[in-house]
């Protein structure tokens, strides 16, 4: 689920299709599935800013991202100059990175999947998976609130016994227009470990989008990563060669 939320934050492309008003008590798994389908169900092009904050320093990176469905993602850093050209390509659950400094495309091995992505609070694993949240968990609707004309669903997702997920449970807060409000990760003792929060929600690219999202560990409130969407466009025509290793290395778009 971590994966999904991450994708979310990086590529934020929630569709603004309100849940069917007729359903009195919508099915939790369907909300989650619907959310994923809608935010990754189409292609998108976005420009983002990522702020990595630490107690004694902070750095800001600008990047551009392309997505197609929930399986293909390409992210490339544009600013600052020294990181320019660093890129990450994800196809299914496999991930490659490219750094112009070493001029090599590196496939991220399993041993590095739990390491941080570009020094942020997202792990490679957070970033590279998307749809596991649907079938690797047991979803339960645990709360419904109404505020500001929107219904917000709180869904508790407990991973299956053999799911490759370390968390004891995750709690997703999803608005009825599929904008993810929050995503909390609890350990197996029920303690909150880290959470993703949408700080700002607005209209962009013709949809409701979480414009600013922050991921941080609960233990260290001074350490967080914030992703801000500067511009996003949905339903763009993407050439097949966008999501290739050669494009990762030699940008043509």
């Amino acid at each position: 689920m971590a994966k999904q939320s991450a994708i979310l934050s990086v590529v934020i492309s929630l569709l603004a299709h309100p849940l069917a008003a007729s359903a009195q008590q919508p099915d939790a798994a369907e909300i989650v599935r619907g959310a994923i389908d809608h935010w990754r169900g189409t292609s998108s092009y976005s420009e983002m800013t990522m702020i990595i904050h630490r107690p004694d320093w902070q750095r800001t990176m600008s990047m551009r991202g392309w997505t197609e469905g929930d399986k293909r993602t390409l992210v490339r850093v544009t600013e600052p100059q020294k990181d320019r050209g660093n890129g990450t390509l994800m196809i299914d659950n496999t991930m490659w990175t490219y750094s112009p400094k070493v001029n090599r495309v590196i496939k991220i091995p399993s041993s590095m999947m739990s390491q941080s992505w570009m020094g942020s609070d997202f792990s490679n694993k957070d970033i590279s998976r998307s749809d596991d949240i649907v079938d690797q968990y047991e979803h339960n609707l645990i709360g419904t609130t109404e505020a500001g004309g929107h219904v917000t669903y709180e869904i508790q997702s407990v991973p299956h016994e053999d799911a490759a997920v370390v968390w004891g449970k995750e709690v997703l807060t999803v608005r009825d227009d599929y904008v993810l409000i929050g995503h909390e990760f609890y350990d197996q003792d029920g303690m909150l470990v880290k959470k993703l929060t949408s700080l700002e929600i607005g209209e962009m690219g013709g949809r409701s989008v979480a414009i600013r999202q922050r991921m941080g560990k609960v233990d260290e409130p001074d350490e967080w990563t914030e992703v801000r969407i500067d511009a996003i466009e949905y339903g763009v025509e993407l050439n097949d060669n966008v999501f290739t290793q050669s494009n990762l290395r030699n940008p043509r778009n």
Partner: protein
Amino acid sequence: MYMLRIMSTLAWRNLWRNHRRTIIMISAITIGVWAMIFMTALMRGMVNEMVRDGIRALPGHVQIHGRGFLDDPGINNLLPMKDEDVTASFDAAGFDAWAGRIRVPAVVTSERDSRGITLYGIDPVRERDITFVAGDIVEGRFLEDADDSGVVIGRKLADNLETELGKRIVIMSQDPDNEIADRGFRIVGIFEARLEAYETSMLFAGKSAIQKMLNVPDRINEVVVLGDDYRNVDPVVRKVTDLVGPGVEVLPWYEVDSYLGTMMTVMDGFVLVWMIVVFLALSFGLVNTLVMAVFERVREIGLMMALGMRPTSILLQIVIESLLLLLLGLLIGNVLAGATVYWLRDGIDISVVAAGMEMFGASSLLYPQLTAHDVVLANVVVLILGSIASLSPAWRASRYDPIEAITKV
């Protein structure tokens, strides 16, 4: 022969003319021999424990791998034959104990941390006779069968990951196509090993579960066979080689774990060096005693020569005297060493220095081990080198000029 008897009688009586000196010398030899044998037994015991522990910590006596496995121990060097074929042929061959494993490097992740480890997919039923883990479970249980979906991890690793018995962890590795293979497992058992390194670096899971996770159904990459004695594994190696044929690597434990293997070889050399060093210290005392004995008896020797005793007999007499001295010392020394080893047969507790011992893989209980080979070696070294050392004073005694010797004051 008659001559020899006279010489022996003379030597024996001469020995007890100055019994205080003789007793001191015999004590010195006794202590030397005791030190040689007992200390060797101690060191043997230590190495023995190390090797046995080392073997129980997974290598077994003989291992079988695909070629290249030792250079790249992972999923890409599987055994060419199928798991079930291995099972059929090894069961038919009637080994004391054997087990197939799948062993890959992996990363284990908890909510708070992740660690690199070696993942062992094992058949717990077979593995019980081979590895230490089954007996060292301190919490929970050992795996029940190859399909068990739980894992057993070390106490220290659990602490590092801030997880505990009953919680889930995620194991990540790679399948043969270099695709990520991962799965969640519940911790069903926690083991403690004598060496911390084992606790942090090993993780055991059911073989079938791992085969499924890694997408290599019915394949393994390691077979371990146990014979009856780790010092004599060649017959097992031969038997296994005949069984599996070419195309795979059959290695005895001392090549799999060359540190342990080298340990044994170094030990043999060390024992000899130790004995010679002890003997050298001893030989100065011996030579000095004999020189004194000869010096005291210059006139007597001159007289015997004047009466017609041959220089050879003089030489013989002195050498026999030293041999008697050595034999007495050896006898008492051997008995004493044997008694000490017997007395300490339940082991010596050296836990005071356990932390240091652990560093090079030894345990904190030391069992001295007496081997016939070492005892014979000690006795032979003392007898042969002792006789050689006594040759110099004996030679000098036999070279005296009778007239000069008699008139010497």
